[in-house]
C-alpha cells in the first residue's frame, strides 16, 4: 500500500524570516557601500637628486600615480578599530594604536595602485579581501614621504569626512 507523506508544516515565523526573492535581487540602496565604492588618492612626484619629491599638482616632468581605496562601512570600521584598540590597565584607559590602525586600514581597504605599471613585482594582491604579506611589504618599501602622504589622504576621507 502506498504511503502518502503528510505535507511539511511550515511555521509562519520561519516564512517571514526568509528574505523575499525580490529583496534579494534588489540593488543596494544609494547609501550602501559596495566593493565598487572607492576613492582615489593621486600622487604627483618629481625626481630630484635621485629621490622623489611630492608635488601639489600635475605639470611638466611630474610623474602621476594613484592609489585606490575602498570606503569603509560601519561594520568594517568597528572590526578594524577593535583590532587596534587595547586597554591599559595601569592608566585605566582604552588606547588606540594609530600605527596599527593605519596598517589595518591599508591592508583591508587598499584596492590597487599604479606603482606596478612598470614593475610587476609591486602588483597588489589580496587574499580573503586582505592584502597579502608581499603586497603589504611592497607598500612599506615606498619612500616614507609617499607613505605618509597616502596615509594622510586616506584618513582625510575615512576619518575627516573628505
Amino acid at each position: 500500500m502506498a504511503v502518502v507523506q503528510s505535507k511539511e508544516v511550515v511555521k509562519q515565523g520561519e516564512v517571514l524570516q526568509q528574505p523575499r526573492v525580490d529583496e534579494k535581487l534588489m540593488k543596494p540602496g544609494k547609501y550602501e557601500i559596495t566593493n565598487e565604492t572607492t576613492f582615489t588618492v593621486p600622487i604627483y612626484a618629481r625626481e630630484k637628486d635621485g629621490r622623489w619629491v611630492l608635488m601639489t599638482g600635475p605639470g611638466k616632468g611630474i610623474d602621476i600615480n594613484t592609489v585606490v581605496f575602498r570606503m569603509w562601512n560601519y561594520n568594517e570600521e568597528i572590526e578594524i578599530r577593535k583590532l587596534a584598540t587595547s586597554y591599559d590597565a595601569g592608566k585605566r584607559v582604552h588606547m588606540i594604536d594609530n600605527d596599527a590602525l593605519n596598517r589595518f586600514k591599508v591592508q583591508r581597504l587598499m584596492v590597487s595602485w599604479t606603482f606596478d605599471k612598470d614593475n610587476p613585482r609591486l602588483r597588489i594582491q589580496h587574499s580573503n579581501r586582505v592584502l597579502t604579506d608581499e603586497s603589504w611589504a611592497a607598500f612599506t618599501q615606498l619612500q616614507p614621504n609617499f607613505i605618509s602622504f597616502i596615509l594622510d589622504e586616506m584618513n582625510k576621507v575615512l576619518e575627516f569626512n573628505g
Partner: protein
Amino acid sequence: MSNELGGIMGSGLQAEQIARQECEELYDPDHVRVRVRTSWKMGFCLPDEDGDSEETAVFATMTFGDNFAIEKGTQYEVELGEKMTGGKATTHVTDIVEYKRLLVKRNLLGWSLDIPIERDESGWMTPECYERVSSVPAPLMESFVRKFEESVEVSEEEEKRIDRQCALLFSKSGHGVADACEAVSLFCTLGNFSEKFGISRDYLPKMSYKEFLLLKIMISKESDSSRHNAPKGGGGGALSQIIGPGGRARPSRGTKIALP
C-alpha cells in the same frame, strides 16, 4: 539695516529650532532625534557641517536597562599587573568599540536613509537588517552615533558646573543658585513636585503652566517662611535639607519647624 534684520530673523529661526527640539524631548522622552548635515563627495554621503542636505536618525532613549545589558554583553576580563595589586587580580572592562555596534542594534529605530529598520519581537534589530544598516559609510553612521551619545553623556564641563552649584546649594549658608544647571533644575523641580504633589516626570510637561507657576511661588514662599522661623544659633536646626524651586533650600518634611 537688512543685515540687522537678517540677524534678527536668523536668531528667531534658531530660537524656534531650539524650542522645537526641547518640545520633542519633553513630549517624546522615549526618542532621541539626531540630525547630521551631509553632502555627497566622491559618490558617497559624508557628514559635512556646511553640507546642503540633512539626514536624520531616531534612536530609542538609552535607558539604564539598555546600558546595563549592552555593557554586560561587551565586558571582558583584564588582568591587572602584579605591581598594582600585589598579586594576581582581574577587572572587567567594557569593549567600547563593540558597545557602539550593539548600541546601533538596540537603539536605532529609524532614519531618513533608504534602508528600512526592522526589529524582532525582543526589540533588537534583525541580523538581515543590521547587515544592510552597517553597510552605510562609516563616517555617516559614526556621526549619528556620536550625536546620540552626546545626548547621554555628562560632559566634563557639565560635571564641573554641577560640582560648583552643589557646593553652594548644599552649604550651611546656601540660599540657592542663580542660573541653575540642568541637573540642579531637574533635581529641585522634580524632587519638590513629586514629594509635595505626587506629580511625576511624565505628567509635569503636560501640567498647566500657570498652575506650575503658582505652585512654584507657593513652594518658594513656604521655603522662605521656614527659613525665617527656624531657630537661630544652630541648635536644633535642620540636619538635612531638600532643595526648593530655583535651587532654594528648605527644611525637609521630617524637621520640626517652630510655629510663628
